Every structure is written in C-alpha cells, then in structure tokens.
C-alpha cells in the first residue's frame, strides 16, 4: 500500500441465515455449521448494524450469553476471544466451538433463553466503493478522518484487520510502507480499542488522535 492512501467506503446489507438458537447447545451446533461470513458478521459486522444500545461485549455471542442466557461467566469467556488472533475465520470458528464445548462440559443445566430472546444468525454482504479521495501524506490524516463516513472508518480501521497480511488497520499498514513510518503514531493507533462505543465515537477518537500527533487543531466532526 505504498504511495497514496486510497479512501474507500462501504455499505452493509444484512441477510438472515435462517437459523436461530435458544440454548447453549444449539449455539454450539449452529456455530459449527453456519457459513463463515456469518461468524465474521457476528464478530465484526455487528458494528455496522443499527443498534439501540451501547456495546458491552465485542461479539454478538458474548452479548447474547449475558443478555439472554443470563450467564455472565460464559459471556466473559466468549468476549475474550480476539478475532484478530486467528489466521482465518475457520480457525476463529474452531476456537469458538472449543470454548462452547468446554462451557457445555462444565454445565449442570443447559443455559436456555426465553422464546422471545433467541439468537438469530445473520451474515453480511459488504459493498465496497472508492470515494476517489486520496491522501498523499500522513499529515492529511486529521482532516481526512473527520470527513470520513462511519462506514469508511469501519472499513479502514476494523475490517482491515481481517484483510491485511499483518492483521492491522489500513492506516498502520500504509504508514509502515512510508519512508518515515511514524512509529509513535502506529503505536497510538494500536492502542485504540475499536470494539466499544459507536463508529461515530471511534471517528471522533481517531480524528483527535491524528490531530494530537500532528499537533494541529482537532477538526470538529459534525454532527
């Protein structure tokens, strides 16, 4: 990704997999055989999906375990699974199944959700498009980040971790290839946890982070 930084944007279409689960055992069975893009969606795509509540966990399985199975321990164990730590979705799936198996082995009663609290498996279709905006130098990042859509932030800062060879966001991947790789900036980017809060708040944090690094006034993101 040497040279210019190509600003892309994306839009998500959410599609039902036609599968729903009510118990922990059903969850294990479904995780084994739903399409890979469904596993991806429940870890990553959930950030792009409209929501009325703040994220407490970094994936839908953990959130469901807490909210609907009322099993905080299970939720914590599922939440610790970091999808960037796996080479591909199948490896992530295997780890998730393993964790669910272990939880099932330890159960005396299978955790079960109310009928109205079932987990519905979804998958996402991502449409990616070029905004035709380019950055020639990292110094342009503060202003550019403020103008990016929240989906563009998702694409470059979150989706990239599953796309780039090093499993990092596009900003770091770009900086690495430059003559001056801005290592301090890369380190600050690595410290920004992308999983919590809304994408709009993530955009605000990124904008502030770039502005502070390049010592320029923070561009106000409106609204």
């Amino acid at each position, binding site marked *: 990704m040497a040279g210019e930084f190509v600003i892309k*944007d*994306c*839009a*998500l*279409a*959410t*599609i*039902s997999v*036609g599968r*729903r689960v009510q118990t922990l055992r059903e969850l294990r069975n479904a995780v084994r055989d739903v399409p890979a*893009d469904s596993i991806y969606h429940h870890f990553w795509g959930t950030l792009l999906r*409209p*929501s*009325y*509540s*703040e994220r407490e966990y970094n994936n839908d399985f953990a959130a469901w375990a807490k909210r609907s199975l009322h099993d905080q321990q299970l939720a914590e164990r599922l939440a610790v699974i970091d999808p960037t730590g796996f080479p591909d979705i199948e490896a992530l799936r295997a780890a998730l199944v393993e964790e669910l198996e272990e939880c099932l082995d330890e159960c005396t009663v299978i955790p079960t959700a109310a009928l*109205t609290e*079932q987990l*519905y498996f*979804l998958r996402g*279709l*991502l*449409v*990616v*498009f*070029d*905004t035709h905006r380019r950055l020639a130098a990292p110094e342009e990042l503060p202003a550019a980040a403020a*103008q*990016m*859509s*929240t*989906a*563009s932030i998702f694409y470059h800062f979150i989706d990239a971790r599953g796309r780039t060879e090093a499993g990092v966001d596009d900003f770091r991947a770009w900086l690495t290839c430059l003559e001056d790789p801005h290592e301090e900036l890369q380190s600050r980017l690595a410290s920004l946890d992308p999983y919590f809060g*809304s*994408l*709009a708040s993530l955009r605000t944090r990124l904008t502030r982070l770039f502005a502070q690094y390049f010592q320029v006034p923070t561009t106000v*993101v*409106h*609204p």
Partner: protein
Amino acid sequence: MSPRLESYVPVVGRSVIDQLEQLARPLHGARVVHVNSTRVGGGVAEILEKMVPFMNELGMEASWEVIEGDQTFYATTKTFHNALQGEPVAPVNRELQHYEDMNAANAQRLGTTLRQADFVFIHDPQPAALLSRFPDRRGRWIWRCHIDLSHPSRPVWKYLRGQVAGYDASVFSLPDFAQVLPHPVFIIPPSIDPLSEKNIELSQEEVRATGAGVGINPDRPLVVQISRFDRFKDPLGVINSYLLASRFAPELQLVLAGGGASDDPEGETVLEEVNRTAADLPGVCVLPLPTTETSPRIVNALQRAADIIMQKSLREGFGLTVTEGMWKGRPVIGGNAGGIRLQVVNHQTGFLVDTPEGAALRIRYLLFNEEERLRMGERAREFVRENFLITRHLREYLTLMVALHHKTVQGRIEL
C-alpha cells in the same frame, strides 16, 4: 415538496450524503417501482413519501403505485394482517379468491410500469399476489414485509408463502420477524425522517400552543401515546396504567392521539370503546387525528410536550412511534412486543413493560427521577441519529439493489 438530500447535511453530516451518492452511481437510470395499498396513513406511506423522491434525486427513475381495492378486499387483507401477527383468524376461500382477483385487476392496470421496471418493491401482503401475474417480468422483484411474521397463523402463512416464495428477495424489519424463504432474506429496520413535519424541530411557543389547544396544562406531567386506534396498541391498557399511576401522581395527564389508515376498517370501533372508557376521566384526552396536512405537526408537538412517551403495544411491527418519541429526546415506556423490544433498552432509552401495572410503575419511576429521565431521553436521541434516520434506511435499500444488480448476495462486492 420533499426536502432534498442536501437539507439533511446539518442533521446527519456531509459524509452520509456523499456516501449515498457514491453508492447510487451503479444504479443510475434504473427504473424502480414501489407498490403498496395506501397513499396516506401508516408507516409505509410515510417512508415512501420520502424514499421515492430520494431515489429520483440519486439518479434513478423511481415511482410509487397504489393498488385499488374494495371493502371486501381490505377486510380480507386486514384479516391477513391480524392472522400473520398471530390472531386465530383466517379468510375463507371466497375471500382469498377475491384477494387474487383484485390483485389480477391491479396487475392489468399497472402492467406496463411493472413489466418494464428494473426493481419492483412490493410492500406488505396486500399487493403480494401481483407477482404471479408477471411471469414475463424482466426486473428484480422484492417483497418488503413490514409486519411481524414470527408467530403467524400457520394456514394463512402457508397461503401467503405460496404467493411470495417466487420473489427474488424479501426484506424484513428484524431477524425475529422473518420466515425462512427460498430466496435471500434481507434485514432492514425502518426509519424516521428528521425533517418531516412529524419530527422537525419546533419552537417552545408552538409546542405550548398545540398543547393548550387540546387542553394540556404545561405545568403538569404528561404521558402521550401516539398510535392508531387498534386493539394491538392496547389503548385501554394505557388508560388503565394512567389510572394506576395517577393515584401517586394526581396531576398526571394522558393524551391518546392517532390517525386512521384507509386500509383499516376496525379503527372506528376501537375508538368508540376508548371514548367510552375515557368519558369520565378529565385528565385523559382522546384525540383522533384526521389525515390532514396539520396532523403530523400536532403529533410532533404532543411528543415534545410529553415527559414520557408510551407505546404499550401488545403486538407490533417495528413500532416507529417509539423511534419518533426517542428523536424528541424523551424516554419511552414500550410494550414488550415486536420491534419495541429492540428500541427500548431498560434504563438506557426507557422501559419495556408487559402489563398496565408495569407501565404505571415505570411512569411513577420516571416522574420521580427527573435527572435520569432527561439523561435517558438524550441518549435515546443519539441512538436514533446514528442508526434510525431515513438516510440509513435509504443506504440499505441501495446496498440491496446493488447486490441484486450484481447478482450476488455472498461475501463482498468491490465496485
């Protein structure tokens, strides 16, 4: 005249509008037809009033057609509606035949438009049988189901499934509402329009004047439920919860306001029952709103005058009045049903309740805890801004259309 997309920049930000324009580029010139059963009243008509001009502004040739029907047809489709939401009722064969005949007549009337369209969105069950009359269609046909099909009356769903299985895709508001169909089932929650008369910012003076016009005392606490007079909206349960709460808050006022829709023949009966129940209650105002241009602004003012918004539905589609209330920065007490479950998060944006007693308890709680009430209202407004405005809804329609245009619904599409 509808506001142009540019007018939404101060509300949603420039990047959102830029994104819509870029996403729509591959769809320039596409002929898009939306078909539903009523031009006025109800959430579908409200969405289409905006969605169609937006699609035109983004370079498509979009139009909106309304099917025609007689009383028997609408009575039958109302039975459909109730049965699909779980009521143990079913149309008889003669009524089903009439339903198909009316769809056939509409197919003849709309033939050329629908046959030439690139995308046809058929909204809800009323016009669903149109598809079978177009074996030679060239475009992509999408069935947009706005109602909750999670627990349908099985015989009625079996019949309707036969009508909709042949579509190229369907769209449901929530995964919980969807049924398994032999085509891609997209999930697109509905939205509100922040610049519509029902949601636009109003001055304090206008809010007070509207309230005074219907007898509201601005110095007394107010609960408002905006909904059609429909049994599923439980207006009698709301009055009951008002009675229970007013024992502890004697100053409490309640407004039940709502319009009708030309495809709902039951509304009058329910309204009469509500009027009878509220007749001796001076703190309750029952306000049937005519389908006129001024009604949405009255709804807007009433929601802004309220301290608490109520939507105590027993069955619900998505329940957009909840989102509208949240956009006004008010907490919502919602029935534990349909899409309300998604919108109302306990202690974050309001409270979910199962009974009039539960609703009364939460009214008392919110009136007692003013600071929390205001905080919940603010949070609710921000959730709506980020997720449930019409620009997000439009983006998801465009994404679906791009996917169908590219004939793929797997993985990702790089434009």
